[in-house]
């Protein structure tokens, strides 16, 4: 990671990844035609207190998901094992995943997404959590990408077919939708696995 503080007069102290991220997201820059479908694993559903454990993302371009361009990152929480969190144990148990400091993980993520449209299931939670971590670590930085929520997309699709449909939230959970669209869930509750499943769901719905 290079730090070129002196080059950026306006937003000093931001690492290169962030300045690049801002640069590609400036109005007028040609938009990336690809989508980044991502998922986060966290210790709770409450954005303000949840601990970010991992981020997984795949790129969808046209109808294709290239495995060369996937993003997977496990975050060092500083107190692994203490909370007895299942996910942490799982991640540790595999032993392979190298954990990263949260700052590093965030920067790599920003670098990965560029100005692509973000896609996530119940995106509010994932985007919110990333934004909270961004503002804690890099004050003033937040995600500016266009976001598509696959849960909302599913609801819209259903409403298009039947305007009077009654929306039951449980019908729009990731599990329910994967089942409905007969997508074999890769491995639920791993960020990359869910990102991939969400990507397939997105491809089928879009």
């Amino acid at each position, binding site marked *: 990671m290079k730090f070129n503080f002196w080059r950026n007069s306006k937003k000093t102290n931001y690492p290169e990844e962030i300045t690049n991220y801002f640069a590609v997201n400036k109005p007028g820059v040609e938009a990336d035609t690809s989508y980044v479908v991502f998922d986060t694993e966290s210790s709770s559903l409450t954005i303000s207190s949840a601990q970010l454990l991992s981020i997984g993302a795949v790129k969808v371009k046209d109808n294709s998901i290239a495995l060369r361009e996937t993003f997977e990152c496990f975050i060092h929480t500083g107190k692994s094992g203490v909370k007895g969190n299942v996910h942490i144990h799982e991640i540790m148990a595999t032993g392979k995943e190298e954990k990263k400091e949260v700052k590093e993980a965030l920067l790599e993520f920003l670098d990965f997404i560029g100005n692509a449209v973000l896609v996530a299931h119940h995106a509010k939670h994932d985007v919110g959590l990333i934004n909270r971590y961004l503002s804690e670590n890099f004050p003033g930085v937040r995600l500016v990408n266009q976001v598509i929520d696959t849960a909302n997309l599913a609801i819209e699709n259903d409403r298009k077919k039947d305007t009077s449909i009654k929306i039951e939230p449980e019908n729009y959970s990731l599990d329910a939708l994967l089942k409905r669209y007969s997508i074999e869930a890769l491995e639920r509750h791993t960020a*990359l696995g869910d990102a991939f499943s969400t990507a397939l769901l997105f491809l089928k719905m879009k």
Partner: protein
Amino acid sequence: MANIISSKIADFIVRFPPFDSLKTDEISSLSEEAEVLYFKKGESVFKHKEKARPFIYFLKEGQVLLRETVDAQKKLIDICDEGELFGVRAMLTGNPYVFEAFCQEESLVYAFPLSVFKPIVESNNNVSLFFASGLASGQKPTGLNTLYRQSDPDKVSDFLSWQKPLEELSEPLLLVKSNTTIKSAALEMTAKASNGIVVTNEEGKAVGIVTDTDFRAKVAGGTFSIEDPVSTIMSTNLIAKQLGLPLAEYLISMLKHNIKHLLITKEEEVVGVFSQQTLFSHLQFNPFSILYNIESAENVEKLCFHRNNVDHFLRYYLEQNIKTAVISQLITTINDALIKKAIQFSLAALDEEKYYRPDVPFAWISLGSEGREEQLLRTDQDNALIFGNVNAAQLNYTREYFIQLARRVNGILFQAGFAYCPANMMARNPDWCLSISEWKNRFEGWIHSPEKEALLLSTIFFDYRYIYGEEELVQMLNSFLKNEVQSHKIFLNFLAKNATKNPAPLSFFKNFVVERSGVHKEEFDLKARALMPLTDIARVLCLEAGNVTIKNTVERYRFLAEQDKSRKELYLQAAQAYEFLMHFRASEGIRNNDSGRFILIKQISKFDRQVLRNSFEPINELQQMIELRFQLNYFS
């Protein structure tokens, strides 16, 4: 880097060929570089004439149709199912796509970059062979399984109609009183062309039955006079069966009581006689009935008629995947019966024409595939005749007589659908109608100076098999051949060289060695490229082992497997391969109504290609073995 997605892809693809023969690291590198593609129903993965993309495609879920556009019509070439590769041809050639890959359902496709895939194909033999065998999608789905769907179901099932009920009797009921003379009963039967007559007592009750056999055995034999009452020769062992039972029941009754005729009743009334012969004619497509009918045919027309029924059961047996050895045994038995019958008819015809029959034994032999008992489809005739030694003065007439005989036999076989041998290798040819001494001279000549022509003749004539006449003549030839070969072993080197002249079809990328020119361009010569090498190798190895009596290729390999335990596996594989190839050839032949010799590669199913290719493997190994054993590299 391996991640959860790529490892799932790896887990999935490894279940399918050719990935199942890849090394773990090859699978990983493929899955890590894969792209997952999603297509909605009705979209295309690639289109006809599109530039080839640097990927090979694997169908994960859904269904992809490979289609060709011919005169603005979409023609289905292949259906690609889950777990199959497609886009292979473009991968191999780099040419634009020949087909369109159309998603019949929404489909999930893994695309593997050629930059990763091609080096694997080239370095891994199993994968190369997979593509050489054409197992990936893109060929027309035909072959054994789809072949028979078009066949007429009635015809196919008909010959197995043991359960078919006997609905009516073809012959009218003939009744005579028991005091009728044998003579008038016989006249009555002849007039009505019946072969069974029911004898009744005063009250009109059936008390016995008289058949042709009774006249022959009891009257012509002189036991009874034709003026005696018919009751003296009738069989009283009467078994009555109702009309309308399944045919099998009548046969069981006949077998159980050891009789050839049954009384058939309808509501307690005798309505007729049912003979075994008639029973078999109801089962005309059953091999045993065919055999029976051939053996009891009274003229050439009937003989040919019954022989024609063979194709019906052949088709059915092939379809049922009955072992080729069993089928060819049946066919051989039937053909042998046909030839014997043809010889008998011809001998009788010569007698009738007042030809003087020379007082010398003769033997009829079949050659080539018929000699090896490997005929399934009717092919050209290959036969010859051996007669005993006669003095010089008699030789010409003797030969002339047997040529006359052979002309008639060859003619009958021709009528029965066996074409004349284009090379005239038939007993009617004076060259192949020889005395035993002349035959020995011939064989000696071929063995001592194995020119090209001699070798060709050896491969046909050394597979001779006794059919009719004096078997001792054939045995004399056997021991002569054995001694000659053993004392002139160099002959075997020539024969071995000849057996390796058609290399086994294994070349990669060309899929099969197809014929490059002539009417059979783009076709594969199954006989020359696969069957003949196996036959030739079996022959030379058996001759080397001193066995001149086994002619059948499969039997020869079994014998060799017994002889040489160290190569048992290879020989048994060869036997199996040969059986498959025979079966395949017959199926193709029936389907295309030809000899099955030339196979249009495009029309073979993926499955058959794979099995075909597997059966080529022992050919290659055997040829290499032969080259070493007979030191063919130092031999020209």
